[in-house]
Protein backbone atom coordinates (compact mmCIF):
# COMPACT_ATOMS: atom_id res chain seq x y z
CA UNK A 1 0.00 0.00 0.00
CA UNK A 2 1.22 3.46 -0.76
CA UNK A 3 1.92 5.83 2.09
CA UNK A 4 -1.18 7.81 1.17
CA UNK A 5 -3.17 4.62 1.38
CA UNK A 6 -1.70 3.78 4.77
CA UNK A 7 -2.75 7.12 6.21
CA UNK A 8 -6.15 6.84 4.53
CA UNK A 9 -6.79 3.41 5.96
CA UNK A 10 -5.89 4.57 9.44
CA UNK A 11 -8.15 7.59 9.13
CA UNK A 12 -10.97 5.29 8.10
CA UNK A 13 -10.24 3.03 11.03
CA UNK A 14 -10.41 5.97 13.40
CA UNK A 15 -13.83 6.91 12.03
CA UNK A 16 -15.12 3.38 12.29
CA UNK A 17 -14.19 3.26 15.97
CA UNK A 18 -16.04 6.45 16.68
CA UNK A 19 -19.48 5.84 18.12
CA UNK A 20 -20.86 9.18 17.02
CA UNK A 21 -20.88 8.13 13.39
CA UNK A 22 -23.06 5.14 14.06
CA UNK A 23 -25.55 7.32 15.87
CA UNK A 24 -25.69 9.73 12.97
CA UNK A 25 -26.30 6.99 10.43
CA UNK A 26 -28.90 5.44 12.68
CA UNK A 27 -30.60 8.80 12.96
CA UNK A 28 -30.72 9.12 9.20
CA UNK A 29 -32.29 5.70 8.87
CA UNK A 30 -34.82 6.71 11.47
CA UNK A 31 -35.73 9.76 9.44
CA UNK A 32 -36.25 7.64 6.40
CA UNK A 33 -38.55 5.32 8.30
CA UNK A 34 -40.43 8.35 9.53
CA UNK A 35 -40.78 9.49 5.96
CA UNK A 36 -42.89 6.47 5.27
CA UNK A 37 -45.28 7.56 7.97
CA UNK A 38 -45.35 11.14 6.79
CA UNK A 39 -46.03 9.95 3.30
CA UNK A 40 -49.15 8.23 4.53
CA UNK A 41 -50.65 11.60 5.31
CA UNK A 42 -50.77 12.59 1.72
CA UNK A 43 -50.76 9.52 -0.44
CA UNK A 44 -50.17 11.30 -3.68
CA UNK A 45 -46.80 12.55 -2.61
CA UNK A 46 -45.74 9.56 -0.57
CA UNK A 47 -42.86 8.81 -2.88
CA UNK A 48 -41.88 12.42 -3.13
CA UNK A 49 -41.76 12.74 0.62
CA UNK A 50 -39.63 9.66 1.09
CA UNK A 51 -37.15 10.80 -1.51
CA UNK A 52 -36.93 14.41 -0.35
CA UNK A 53 -36.76 13.56 3.32
CA UNK A 54 -34.30 10.76 2.70
CA UNK A 55 -32.00 12.78 0.48
CA UNK A 56 -32.17 15.74 2.83
CA UNK A 57 -31.21 13.57 5.78
CA UNK A 58 -28.34 12.00 3.88
CA UNK A 59 -27.17 15.40 2.71
CA UNK A 60 -27.35 17.14 6.06
CA UNK A 61 -25.75 14.37 8.02
CA UNK A 62 -23.09 13.96 5.39
CA UNK A 63 -22.37 17.66 5.54
CA UNK A 64 -22.13 17.65 9.31
CA UNK A 65 -19.63 14.85 9.16
CA UNK A 66 -17.69 16.41 6.34
CA UNK A 67 -17.37 19.77 8.04
CA UNK A 68 -16.74 18.74 11.62
CA UNK A 69 -14.57 15.74 11.01
CA UNK A 70 -12.94 17.38 8.01
CA UNK A 71 -11.82 20.35 10.04
CA UNK A 72 -10.52 18.07 12.77
CA UNK A 73 -8.49 15.91 10.42
CA UNK A 74 -5.45 18.09 10.61
CA UNK A 75 -6.15 20.33 13.57
CA UNK A 76 -6.71 17.44 15.94
CA UNK A 77 -3.41 15.88 15.02
CA UNK A 78 -1.67 19.21 15.42
CA UNK A 79 -3.25 19.97 18.78
CA UNK A 80 -2.71 16.57 20.23
CA UNK A 81 0.70 16.36 18.61
CA UNK A 82 0.11 12.88 17.30
CA UNK A 83 1.46 14.36 14.11
CA UNK A 84 5.00 14.64 15.45
CA UNK A 85 5.73 10.96 15.53
CA UNK A 86 4.03 10.43 12.19
CA UNK A 87 6.01 13.09 10.34
CA UNK A 88 9.23 11.61 11.65
CA UNK A 89 8.55 8.68 9.35
CA UNK A 90 9.50 8.87 5.70
CA UNK A 91 6.13 10.32 4.74
CA UNK A 92 5.73 13.68 3.09
CA UNK A 93 3.32 16.26 4.34
CA UNK A 94 1.21 16.16 1.18
CA UNK A 95 0.97 12.39 1.43
CA UNK A 96 -0.36 12.79 4.94
CA UNK A 97 -2.91 15.35 3.77
CA UNK A 98 -4.07 13.31 0.84
CA UNK A 99 -4.33 10.24 3.01
CA UNK A 100 -6.51 12.07 5.50
CA UNK A 101 -8.72 13.28 2.68
CA UNK A 102 -9.02 9.82 1.21
CA UNK A 103 -9.77 8.26 4.58
CA UNK A 104 -12.60 10.63 5.36
CA UNK A 105 -13.97 10.31 1.86
CA UNK A 106 -13.99 6.55 2.25
CA UNK A 107 -15.82 6.90 5.54
CA UNK A 108 -18.37 9.22 4.01
CA UNK A 109 -18.88 6.90 1.07
CA UNK A 110 -19.57 3.95 3.33
CA UNK A 111 -21.95 5.93 5.52
CA UNK A 112 -23.75 7.46 2.56
CA UNK A 113 -24.10 4.06 0.94
CA UNK A 114 -25.63 2.68 4.13
CA UNK A 115 -28.11 5.51 4.34
CA UNK A 116 -28.92 5.23 0.64
CA UNK A 117 -29.60 1.54 1.09
CA UNK A 118 -32.10 2.49 3.75
CA UNK A 119 -33.67 5.00 1.42
CA UNK A 120 -34.05 2.48 -1.36
CA UNK A 121 -35.48 -0.03 1.06
CA UNK A 122 -38.12 2.50 2.07
CA UNK A 123 -38.84 3.33 -1.54
CA UNK A 124 -39.17 -0.32 -2.43
CA UNK A 125 -41.48 -0.80 0.52
CA UNK A 126 -43.97 1.76 -0.72
CA UNK A 127 -43.78 1.00 -4.40
CA UNK A 128 -42.73 -2.50 -5.08
CA UNK A 129 -41.09 -2.61 -8.40
CA UNK A 130 -38.65 0.23 -8.72
CA UNK A 131 -38.60 1.76 -12.16
CA UNK A 132 -36.13 3.63 -14.32
CA UNK A 133 -37.08 6.94 -12.80
CA UNK A 134 -35.70 5.83 -9.49
CA UNK A 135 -32.21 5.77 -10.91
CA UNK A 136 -32.39 9.50 -10.41
CA UNK A 137 -32.30 8.90 -6.68
CA UNK A 138 -29.07 6.97 -7.05
CA UNK A 139 -27.57 9.76 -9.09
CA UNK A 140 -28.72 12.26 -6.48
CA UNK A 141 -26.90 10.27 -3.80
CA UNK A 142 -23.78 10.17 -5.94
CA UNK A 143 -23.95 13.92 -6.39
CA UNK A 144 -24.27 14.33 -2.65
CA UNK A 145 -21.05 12.39 -2.33
CA UNK A 146 -19.30 14.63 -4.85
CA UNK A 147 -20.52 17.61 -2.90
CA UNK A 148 -19.16 16.13 0.31
CA UNK A 149 -15.78 15.57 -1.31
CA UNK A 150 -15.61 19.26 -2.12
CA UNK A 151 -16.61 20.20 1.39
CA UNK A 152 -13.98 17.95 2.92
CA UNK A 153 -11.31 19.43 0.68
CA UNK A 154 -12.32 22.93 1.74
CA UNK A 155 -12.46 21.98 5.41
CA UNK A 156 -9.00 20.52 5.09
CA UNK A 157 -7.69 23.64 3.42
CA UNK A 158 -8.99 25.98 6.10
CA UNK A 159 -7.92 23.79 8.96
CA UNK A 160 -4.36 23.95 7.67
CA UNK A 161 -3.98 27.57 8.58
CA UNK A 162 -6.79 28.79 10.81
CA UNK A 163 -8.30 27.68 14.09
CA UNK A 164 -10.86 24.88 14.00
CA UNK A 165 -13.72 27.24 14.77
CA UNK A 166 -12.85 29.60 11.96
CA UNK A 167 -12.33 26.69 9.62
CA UNK A 168 -15.83 25.45 10.39
CA UNK A 169 -17.29 28.91 9.81
CA UNK A 170 -15.44 29.41 6.54
CA UNK A 171 -16.34 26.00 5.22
CA UNK A 172 -19.99 26.37 6.16
CA UNK A 173 -19.96 29.85 4.68
CA UNK A 174 -18.55 28.63 1.41
CA UNK A 175 -21.16 25.89 1.28
CA UNK A 176 -23.96 28.43 1.57
CA UNK A 177 -22.33 30.91 -0.78
CA UNK A 178 -21.72 28.11 -3.25
CA UNK A 179 -25.44 27.55 -3.54
CA UNK A 180 -26.05 31.04 -4.83
CA UNK A 181 -23.28 31.16 -7.35
CA UNK A 182 -25.66 31.26 -10.28
CA UNK A 183 -27.53 34.22 -8.84
CA UNK A 184 -24.23 35.96 -8.32
CA UNK A 185 -23.32 35.43 -11.91
CA UNK A 186 -26.37 37.00 -13.50
CA UNK A 187 -27.11 39.63 -10.97
CA UNK A 188 -29.89 41.91 -12.11
CA UNK A 189 -29.47 45.11 -10.26
CA UNK A 190 -29.89 48.63 -11.46
CA UNK A 191 -28.12 50.16 -8.51
CA UNK A 192 -24.94 48.13 -8.47
CA UNK A 193 -21.78 49.51 -10.06
CA UNK A 194 -20.62 47.62 -13.16
CA UNK A 195 -17.26 47.05 -11.54
CA UNK A 196 -18.90 45.34 -8.64
CA UNK A 197 -20.99 43.22 -10.96
CA UNK A 198 -17.89 42.17 -12.86
CA UNK A 199 -16.17 41.29 -9.62
CA UNK A 200 -19.10 39.19 -8.50
CA UNK A 201 -19.14 37.46 -11.82
CA UNK A 202 -15.50 36.58 -11.51
CA UNK A 203 -16.11 35.47 -7.94
CA UNK A 204 -18.94 33.24 -9.06
CA UNK A 205 -16.51 31.20 -11.10
CA UNK A 206 -14.03 30.99 -8.31
CA UNK A 207 -16.42 29.79 -5.67
CA UNK A 208 -17.45 26.17 -5.65
CA UNK A 209 -20.79 25.81 -7.39
CA UNK A 210 -22.78 23.53 -5.17
CA UNK A 211 -25.93 24.11 -7.13
CA UNK A 212 -24.50 21.85 -9.80
CA UNK A 213 -25.19 18.91 -7.56
CA UNK A 214 -28.74 19.86 -6.63
CA UNK A 215 -30.99 17.33 -8.32
CA UNK A 216 -33.35 16.60 -5.48
CA UNK A 217 -36.36 17.86 -7.43
CA UNK A 218 -35.63 15.54 -10.32
CA UNK A 219 -35.09 12.59 -8.02
CA UNK A 220 -38.26 13.38 -6.09
CA UNK A 221 -40.36 13.31 -9.22
CA UNK A 222 -38.62 10.40 -10.88
CA UNK A 223 -37.06 12.31 -13.74
CA UNK A 224 -33.95 10.68 -15.09
CA UNK A 225 -30.77 12.71 -14.97
CA UNK A 226 -28.73 13.07 -18.15
CA UNK A 227 -25.48 11.16 -18.23
CA UNK A 228 -23.69 14.24 -19.48
CA UNK A 229 -24.38 15.98 -16.20
CA UNK A 230 -22.97 13.01 -14.35
CA UNK A 231 -19.73 13.20 -16.29
CA UNK A 232 -19.47 16.97 -16.01
CA UNK A 233 -20.10 17.08 -12.31
CA UNK A 234 -17.61 14.32 -11.67
CA UNK A 235 -14.98 16.21 -13.63
CA UNK A 236 -15.81 19.48 -11.89
CA UNK A 237 -15.60 17.94 -8.45
CA UNK A 238 -12.35 16.16 -9.24
CA UNK A 239 -10.76 19.28 -10.65
CA UNK A 240 -11.92 21.59 -7.89
CA UNK A 241 -10.82 19.13 -5.19
CA UNK A 242 -7.44 18.77 -6.84
CA UNK A 243 -6.90 22.52 -6.81
CA UNK A 244 -8.03 22.94 -3.23
CA UNK A 245 -5.96 20.03 -2.02
CA UNK A 246 -2.92 21.31 -3.87
CA UNK A 247 -3.34 24.64 -2.13
CA UNK A 248 -3.76 22.89 1.21
CA UNK A 249 -0.63 20.82 0.60
CA UNK A 250 1.37 23.91 -0.26
CA UNK A 251 0.27 25.72 2.86
CA UNK A 252 0.73 22.76 5.11
CA UNK A 253 4.16 21.95 3.76
CA UNK A 254 5.45 25.28 4.99
CA UNK A 255 3.66 25.33 8.27
CA UNK A 256 5.69 25.36 11.46
CA UNK A 257 4.11 22.95 13.89
CA UNK A 258 3.67 24.04 17.47
Amino acid sequence: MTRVGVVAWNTFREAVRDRVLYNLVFFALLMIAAAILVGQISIEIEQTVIVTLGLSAISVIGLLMAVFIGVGLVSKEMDKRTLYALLSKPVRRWEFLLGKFGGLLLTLTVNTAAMAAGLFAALWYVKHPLDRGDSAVLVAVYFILLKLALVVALALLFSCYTSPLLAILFTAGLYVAGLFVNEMRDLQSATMAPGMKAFLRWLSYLLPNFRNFDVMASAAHGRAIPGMLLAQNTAYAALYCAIVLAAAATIFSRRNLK
Partner: protein
Amino acid sequence: MQQGIDAQIGGLHQEQDELVLRSAPMLRMMSLEYAPLLADLYWTRTVQYYGSKNTRPEHQLDLLWPLLDITTTLDPNLIPAYSFGSTFLAEPAPRGAGMPEQAIKFLNRGIRANPDYWRFYEDMGFIYYFDMRNYEKASNAFLEGSKNPAALPWMKVLAARVSEKGESRETSVFLWNEIYNSSTDAQLKQNALTHLRLLRAQEDCERLDVLAEEFGKRRGRRPTSVLDLVNAGLIPGEAVDPLGFVYVFDADGFAQINPTSPLAKDQTLYQRPM
Protein backbone atom coordinates in the same frame (compact mmCIF):
# COMPACT_ATOMS: atom_id res chain seq x y z
CA MET B 1 -58.68 25.25 31.34
CA GLN B 2 -57.36 23.11 28.52
CA GLN B 3 -59.76 24.83 26.15
CA GLY B 4 -58.52 28.15 27.40
CA ILE B 5 -54.97 27.11 26.67
CA ASP B 6 -55.97 25.79 23.26
CA ALA B 7 -57.60 29.09 22.43
CA GLN B 8 -54.48 30.98 23.43
CA ILE B 9 -52.17 28.72 21.48
CA GLY B 10 -54.54 28.86 18.51
CA GLY B 11 -54.14 32.60 18.61
CA LEU B 12 -50.37 32.29 18.63
CA HIS B 13 -50.37 29.95 15.70
CA GLN B 14 -52.40 32.39 13.72
CA GLU B 15 -49.73 34.98 14.28
CA GLN B 16 -47.09 32.48 13.41
CA ASP B 17 -48.87 31.81 10.18
CA GLU B 18 -48.74 35.47 9.29
CA LEU B 19 -45.08 35.70 10.12
CA VAL B 20 -43.93 32.63 8.33
CA LEU B 21 -45.76 33.24 5.10
CA ARG B 22 -43.64 36.22 4.29
CA SER B 23 -42.43 35.79 0.81
CA ALA B 24 -42.11 32.77 -1.39
CA PRO B 25 -38.82 33.78 -3.05
CA MET B 26 -37.27 34.50 0.32
CA LEU B 27 -38.27 31.11 1.65
CA ARG B 28 -36.86 29.55 -1.44
CA MET B 29 -33.57 31.26 -0.86
CA MET B 30 -33.46 30.27 2.78
CA SER B 31 -34.14 26.68 1.99
CA LEU B 32 -30.70 26.31 0.39
CA GLU B 33 -30.88 23.07 -1.55
CA TYR B 34 -33.68 21.55 0.48
CA ALA B 35 -36.51 23.36 -1.24
CA PRO B 36 -38.34 20.22 -2.39
CA LEU B 37 -38.47 18.97 1.18
CA LEU B 38 -39.81 22.26 2.41
CA ALA B 39 -42.32 22.17 -0.44
CA ASP B 40 -43.57 18.82 0.77
CA LEU B 41 -43.94 20.20 4.26
CA TYR B 42 -45.82 23.25 3.07
CA TRP B 43 -47.99 21.06 0.91
CA THR B 44 -48.93 18.95 3.89
CA ARG B 45 -49.67 22.13 5.75
CA THR B 46 -51.81 23.40 2.89
CA VAL B 47 -53.88 20.24 2.86
CA GLN B 48 -54.37 20.45 6.60
CA TYR B 49 -55.18 24.13 6.38
CA TYR B 50 -57.93 23.45 3.90
CA GLY B 51 -59.15 20.46 5.85
CA SER B 52 -59.49 22.50 9.01
CA LYS B 53 -61.40 25.34 7.41
CA ASN B 54 -64.50 24.47 9.34
CA THR B 55 -62.77 25.33 12.58
CA ARG B 56 -62.18 28.87 11.44
CA PRO B 57 -64.76 31.63 11.49
CA GLU B 58 -66.59 31.78 8.15
CA HIS B 59 -64.44 28.95 6.87
CA GLN B 60 -61.83 31.52 6.15
CA LEU B 61 -59.26 30.55 3.55
CA ASP B 62 -57.14 33.69 3.36
CA LEU B 63 -53.92 31.78 3.63
CA LEU B 64 -54.73 29.23 0.96
CA TRP B 65 -53.18 31.19 -1.87
CA PRO B 66 -50.00 32.17 0.03
CA LEU B 67 -49.49 28.57 1.08
CA LEU B 68 -49.95 27.33 -2.46
CA ASP B 69 -47.69 30.05 -3.75
CA ILE B 70 -44.93 29.03 -1.40
CA THR B 71 -45.37 25.34 -2.05
CA THR B 72 -45.07 25.72 -5.79
CA THR B 73 -42.26 28.25 -5.61
CA LEU B 74 -40.28 25.78 -3.58
CA ASP B 75 -41.08 22.93 -5.92
CA PRO B 76 -42.69 23.88 -9.21
CA ASN B 77 -43.10 20.24 -10.10
CA LEU B 78 -45.34 19.31 -7.22
CA ILE B 79 -48.25 18.50 -9.49
CA PRO B 80 -50.87 17.60 -6.88
CA ALA B 81 -50.56 21.09 -5.51
CA TYR B 82 -51.79 22.68 -8.70
CA SER B 83 -54.81 20.43 -9.12
CA PHE B 84 -55.90 20.63 -5.54
CA GLY B 85 -55.00 24.25 -5.25
CA SER B 86 -56.76 25.48 -8.36
CA THR B 87 -59.94 23.63 -7.51
CA PHE B 88 -60.27 25.09 -4.05
CA LEU B 89 -59.02 28.48 -5.03
CA ALA B 90 -61.77 28.71 -7.63
CA GLU B 91 -64.65 27.27 -5.65
CA PRO B 92 -66.73 30.01 -4.12
CA ALA B 93 -66.92 30.44 -0.37
CA PRO B 94 -67.60 28.71 1.93
CA ARG B 95 -66.10 25.70 0.29
CA GLY B 96 -63.29 27.48 -1.47
CA ALA B 97 -61.42 30.73 -1.58
CA GLY B 98 -63.53 32.15 -4.36
CA MET B 99 -60.61 33.35 -6.46
CA PRO B 100 -61.12 31.80 -9.90
CA GLU B 101 -58.85 34.25 -11.76
CA GLN B 102 -56.06 33.48 -9.35
CA ALA B 103 -56.73 29.80 -9.92
CA ILE B 104 -56.33 30.25 -13.65
CA LYS B 105 -53.08 32.14 -13.18
CA PHE B 106 -51.95 29.41 -10.87
CA LEU B 107 -52.70 26.74 -13.42
CA ASN B 108 -50.79 28.67 -16.03
CA ARG B 109 -47.81 28.65 -13.73
CA GLY B 110 -48.23 24.92 -13.39
CA ILE B 111 -48.36 24.45 -17.11
CA ARG B 112 -45.19 26.48 -17.62
CA ALA B 113 -43.32 24.35 -15.12
CA ASN B 114 -44.81 21.05 -16.24
CA PRO B 115 -45.62 21.37 -19.92
CA ASP B 116 -46.26 17.66 -20.35
CA TYR B 117 -49.03 17.42 -17.79
CA TRP B 118 -52.18 17.88 -19.89
CA ARG B 119 -54.60 17.58 -17.02
CA PHE B 120 -53.91 21.17 -16.04
CA TYR B 121 -55.80 22.15 -19.17
CA GLU B 122 -58.61 19.97 -18.02
CA ASP B 123 -58.60 21.74 -14.66
CA MET B 124 -58.47 25.09 -16.39
CA GLY B 125 -61.30 24.30 -18.72
CA PHE B 126 -63.27 23.15 -15.76
CA ILE B 127 -62.79 26.35 -13.83
CA TYR B 128 -63.76 28.49 -16.82
CA TYR B 129 -66.82 26.33 -17.36
CA PHE B 130 -67.99 25.89 -13.84
CA ASP B 131 -66.83 28.82 -11.78
CA MET B 132 -66.48 31.53 -14.36
CA ARG B 133 -69.06 30.43 -16.91
CA ASN B 134 -66.81 31.50 -19.72
CA TYR B 135 -67.60 28.79 -22.22
CA GLU B 136 -65.42 30.10 -24.97
CA LYS B 137 -62.33 30.06 -22.83
CA ALA B 138 -63.32 26.73 -21.39
CA SER B 139 -63.56 25.24 -24.84
CA ASN B 140 -60.20 26.71 -25.79
CA ALA B 141 -58.61 25.19 -22.74
CA PHE B 142 -59.97 21.76 -23.51
CA LEU B 143 -58.81 22.12 -27.06
CA GLU B 144 -55.32 23.14 -26.05
CA GLY B 145 -55.07 20.23 -23.69
CA SER B 146 -56.28 17.80 -26.32
CA LYS B 147 -53.21 18.60 -28.41
CA ASN B 148 -51.06 16.65 -25.98
CA PRO B 149 -50.66 13.15 -27.38
CA ALA B 150 -51.17 11.69 -23.93
CA ALA B 151 -54.48 13.46 -23.45
CA LEU B 152 -57.64 11.39 -23.29
CA PRO B 153 -59.84 11.65 -26.40
CA TRP B 154 -62.80 13.22 -24.65
CA MET B 155 -60.89 16.47 -24.27
CA LYS B 156 -61.49 17.22 -27.90
CA VAL B 157 -65.10 16.12 -27.72
CA LEU B 158 -65.66 18.33 -24.71
CA ALA B 159 -64.04 21.27 -26.41
CA ALA B 160 -66.57 21.04 -29.20
CA ARG B 161 -69.55 20.41 -26.96
CA VAL B 162 -68.87 23.27 -24.59
CA SER B 163 -68.24 25.61 -27.47
CA GLU B 164 -71.55 24.62 -28.93
CA LYS B 165 -73.87 24.22 -26.00
CA GLY B 166 -72.25 26.09 -23.19
CA GLU B 167 -73.30 24.77 -19.86
CA SER B 168 -75.20 21.54 -19.70
CA ARG B 169 -75.81 19.04 -17.01
CA GLU B 170 -74.40 16.28 -19.16
CA THR B 171 -71.11 18.13 -19.46
CA SER B 172 -71.01 18.96 -15.78
CA VAL B 173 -71.68 15.40 -14.75
CA PHE B 174 -69.06 14.17 -17.13
CA LEU B 175 -66.43 16.58 -15.83
CA TRP B 176 -67.09 15.91 -12.17
CA ASN B 177 -66.99 12.20 -12.87
CA GLU B 178 -63.68 12.58 -14.58
CA ILE B 179 -62.28 14.44 -11.62
CA TYR B 180 -63.65 11.89 -9.18
CA ASN B 181 -62.06 9.03 -11.06
CA SER B 182 -58.72 10.55 -11.83
CA SER B 183 -58.09 12.22 -8.50
CA THR B 184 -56.23 10.51 -5.67
CA ASP B 185 -56.72 13.21 -3.09
CA ALA B 186 -59.48 12.42 -0.61
CA GLN B 187 -60.74 15.95 -0.34
CA LEU B 188 -60.91 16.45 -4.09
CA LYS B 189 -62.76 13.19 -4.47
CA GLN B 190 -65.24 14.08 -1.78
CA ASN B 191 -65.83 17.44 -3.36
CA ALA B 192 -66.50 15.89 -6.75
CA LEU B 193 -68.77 13.30 -5.23
CA THR B 194 -70.87 15.88 -3.52
CA HIS B 195 -71.19 17.86 -6.71
CA LEU B 196 -72.23 14.72 -8.57
CA ARG B 197 -74.84 13.89 -5.97
CA LEU B 198 -76.25 17.37 -6.12
CA LEU B 199 -76.41 17.25 -9.88
CA ARG B 200 -78.15 13.93 -9.65
CA ALA B 201 -80.60 15.31 -7.14
CA GLN B 202 -81.15 18.31 -9.37
CA GLU B 203 -81.91 16.03 -12.26
CA ASP B 204 -84.20 13.93 -10.13
CA CYS B 205 -86.08 16.99 -8.96
CA GLU B 206 -86.54 18.21 -12.50
CA ARG B 207 -87.96 14.88 -13.53
CA LEU B 208 -90.17 14.88 -10.47
CA ASP B 209 -91.34 18.34 -11.42
CA VAL B 210 -92.30 17.08 -14.89
CA LEU B 211 -94.23 14.28 -13.23
CA ALA B 212 -95.77 16.75 -10.81
CA GLU B 213 -96.93 18.79 -13.77
CA GLU B 214 -98.56 15.69 -15.17
CA PHE B 215 -100.10 14.98 -11.77
CA GLY B 216 -101.39 18.50 -11.60
CA LYS B 217 -103.02 18.12 -14.96
CA ARG B 218 -104.70 14.91 -13.85
CA ARG B 219 -105.71 15.84 -10.34
CA GLY B 220 -106.01 19.57 -10.59
CA ARG B 221 -103.46 20.16 -7.87
CA ARG B 222 -99.79 19.64 -7.50
CA PRO B 223 -98.61 16.73 -5.36
CA THR B 224 -97.75 17.24 -1.72
CA SER B 225 -95.48 14.32 -1.43
CA VAL B 226 -93.79 11.61 -3.40
CA LEU B 227 -96.42 9.15 -2.24
CA ASP B 228 -98.95 11.07 -4.27
CA LEU B 229 -96.99 10.25 -7.37
CA VAL B 230 -96.63 6.63 -6.34
CA ASN B 231 -100.31 6.32 -5.75
CA ALA B 232 -100.98 7.92 -9.09
CA GLY B 233 -98.87 5.24 -10.66
CA LEU B 234 -96.45 7.76 -12.05
CA ILE B 235 -93.43 6.29 -10.32
CA PRO B 236 -92.91 2.71 -9.21
CA GLY B 237 -91.60 3.47 -5.75
CA GLU B 238 -90.39 6.18 -3.44
CA ALA B 239 -87.95 8.44 -5.14
CA VAL B 240 -84.89 8.90 -3.02
CA ASP B 241 -81.86 11.09 -3.34
CA PRO B 242 -78.37 9.56 -3.75
CA LEU B 243 -78.10 9.35 0.03
CA GLY B 244 -81.35 7.52 0.37
CA PHE B 245 -83.58 10.30 1.60
CA VAL B 246 -87.02 10.70 0.08
CA TYR B 247 -87.63 13.81 -1.92
CA VAL B 248 -90.26 16.21 -0.72
CA PHE B 249 -92.48 18.75 -2.39
CA ASP B 250 -92.49 22.31 -1.24
CA ALA B 251 -95.56 24.49 -0.73
CA ASP B 252 -95.67 25.41 -4.40
CA GLY B 253 -95.59 21.81 -5.42
CA PHE B 254 -92.03 21.70 -6.67
CA ALA B 255 -89.70 18.86 -5.80
CA GLN B 256 -86.94 19.53 -3.29
CA ILE B 257 -84.29 17.64 -1.47
CA ASN B 258 -85.49 16.38 1.86
CA PRO B 259 -84.41 18.88 4.54
CA THR B 260 -83.33 15.99 6.75
CA SER B 261 -80.94 14.74 4.10
CA PRO B 262 -77.31 15.86 4.45
CA LEU B 263 -77.56 16.82 0.80
CA ALA B 264 -79.84 19.67 1.76
CA LYS B 265 -77.08 21.22 3.80
CA ASP B 266 -74.62 20.61 1.01
CA GLN B 267 -76.95 22.33 -1.34
CA THR B 268 -76.82 25.55 0.59
CA LEU B 269 -73.07 25.32 0.90
CA TYR B 270 -72.51 24.43 -2.70
CA GLN B 271 -74.89 26.97 -4.10
CA ARG B 272 -73.33 28.93 -6.82
CA PRO B 273 -73.62 32.69 -6.63
CA MET B 274 -75.71 33.98 -9.47
